[in-house]
């Protein structure tokens, strides 16, 4: 348990955050949480299954539309909407994923991208149902969640619960089976695993959490647009996972903190945000390929080995006075 003291610090920090910063930064914090959940769910496919999806925004967008439309058109309570978002995103992922998991590598990536764009165009074109490119307005959270601070705490609880669930999944026999498939799919087959079936299950679970993240977005923004499904949006969790580090569970969340915070900060100064994030990505890929988590682990290792080397020196001193 001692190893996790820093989690307690983050937890306390997150709790008192709205008390010490202004409303603008509370909004940024909500976005960090929502996009972080989206990125961690993406990393179930990228970091743990070893495949890259360029269409993960499809499930984020479907989740956003499920909650948004149920709230606006049927006045369904928010918690039920969020469950519906997960289920809807999961069903979409089941249909699209059935085809995607037949492929791996670049072909998997391209097919997820194609299905993502398909989803985007469906939402974009289907005016009568989705509102098309007008988007969907008037997604108002219930009264008790109306203020930024209240919605922040609500989002924090949901995201924390989702992260804990995904953390457990990552350490479960299922999670290790995904790592096994990532490392050596053929070997996993010969041990007795139906690799495609497991990849599909993982794809669906990841999409459900992306759907949950999307569901949280509408009541926060008060509106949603088809762009949520577009391939730009699918690139966001890729960037976050790469910046934070795909091999650590919280890597993508750290990526979200850096990405979202910087975006809020930089867009306040200049309109050249894409240029800034582009440079950051180039820097990370070239100089810290394990992301922030990878770098931190390396530092800890160097620190430990130095301490051990120091200890060894001391002992030789005492032995040979």
């Amino acid at each position, binding site marked *: 348990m001692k190893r996790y003291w820093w989690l307690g610090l983050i937890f306390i920090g997150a709790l008192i955050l709205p008390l010490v910063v202004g409303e603008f930064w509370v909004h940024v914090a909500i976005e960090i949480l929502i996009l972080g959940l989206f990125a961690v769910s993406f990393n179930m496919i990228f970091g743990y299954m070893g495949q890259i999806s360029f269409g993960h925004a499809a499930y984020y967008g479907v989740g956003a539309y499920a909650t948004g439309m149920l709230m606006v058109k049927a006045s369904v309570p928010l918690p039920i909407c969020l469950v519906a978002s997960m289920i809807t995103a999961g069903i979409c992922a089941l249909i699209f994923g059935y085809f995607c998991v037949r492929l791996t590598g670049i072909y998997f990536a391209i097919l997820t991208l194609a299905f993502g764009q398909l989803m985007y165009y469906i939402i974009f074109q289907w005016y009568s149902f989705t509102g098309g490119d007008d988007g969907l307005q008037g997604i108002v959270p219930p009264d008790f969640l109306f203020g930024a601070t209240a919605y922040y705490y609500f989002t924090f609880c949901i995201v924390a619960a989702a992260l804990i669930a995904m953390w*457990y999944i990552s350490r*479960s*026999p299922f999670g*290790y089976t995904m*790592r*096994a498939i990532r490392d050596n799919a053929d070997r996993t087959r010969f*041990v*007795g695993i139906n690799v495609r079936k497991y990849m599909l299950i993982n794809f669906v679970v990841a999409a459900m959490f992306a759907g949950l993240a999307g569901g949280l977005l509408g009541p926060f923004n008060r509106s949603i647009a088809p762009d949520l499904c577009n391939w730009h949006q699918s690139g966001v969790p890729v960037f976050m996972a790469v910046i934070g580090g795909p091999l650590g569970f919280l890597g993508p969340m750290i990526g979200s903190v850096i990405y979202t915070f910087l975006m809020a900060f930089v867009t306040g100064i200049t309109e050249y945000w894409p240029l800034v994030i582009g440079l950051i990505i180039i820097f990370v890929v070239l100089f810290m390929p394990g992301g922030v988590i990878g770098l931190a682990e390396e530092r800890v290792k160097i620190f430990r080995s130095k301490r051990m080397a120091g200890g060894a020196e001391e002992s030789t001193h005492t032995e040979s006075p």
Partner: protein
Amino acid sequence: MSGEAILKVVRLNKSFGGLKATNDVDYEMTTRELSAIIGPNGAGKSTFFNLLTGYHKVDSGEVYYKGKDITNWPPHKIARLGIARAFQISNIYPALTTYENTRQAILTEQNRTLNFFTPAERLAKKETLELLEITGLSHHANMMAGNLSQGDKKRLELAIALGSKPQLVFLDEPTAGMSGEETRETMELVARLNKEMGLTILFTEHDMSVVFGYARRLTVLHQGTVIAEGTPEEVRANERAQKIYLGEEA
């Protein structure tokens, strides 16, 4: 010693392009047998294993396991019947520890891989440690499998195969890359698994001393065709086998 046929292969054929890798092969194994397939490089030994375990689709012919037709079944279904294999080039999970590699096979056999919420480290502890002990890997339990020595990787190969509690095991050159001492240890283990745990084992091997020391029945494969079969003594006396294979060694 011998029981009913556990494996029966009838007129198996497979070609790649114009090359006949497996040519009308008939083969049969009885329960608790310890046998070997020998033959020069490219004789079709690995292809034969790949056909039996579902990695390649057969062109024609049938494979029966305990009387059940398993021809062209997918690999994971064949594995679930109790047929395991270890690979010639070690085929492990390099980014998982030795312990995790072994546990993965055991958890699969125990049908626990759809468990989403119990931390894996709490499961199958006893079985995993036991298997690491048997295969002589206990001292490397927490090492990343990718960092193991060649010999230890081959042992891990064997541990993964045994983790699925098989009844029939195919070992493709189980001692490739091992030192003389390691080879002897590994083959002693294979013999023990056969004798004490009653596993039916079929292996391929380059080293003739290993083959003649441990296999009770030999099959000589050449260009995809079975050219001799029998006890080590019979094969040694077989002129064609001598000429094609053993002659090369001498």
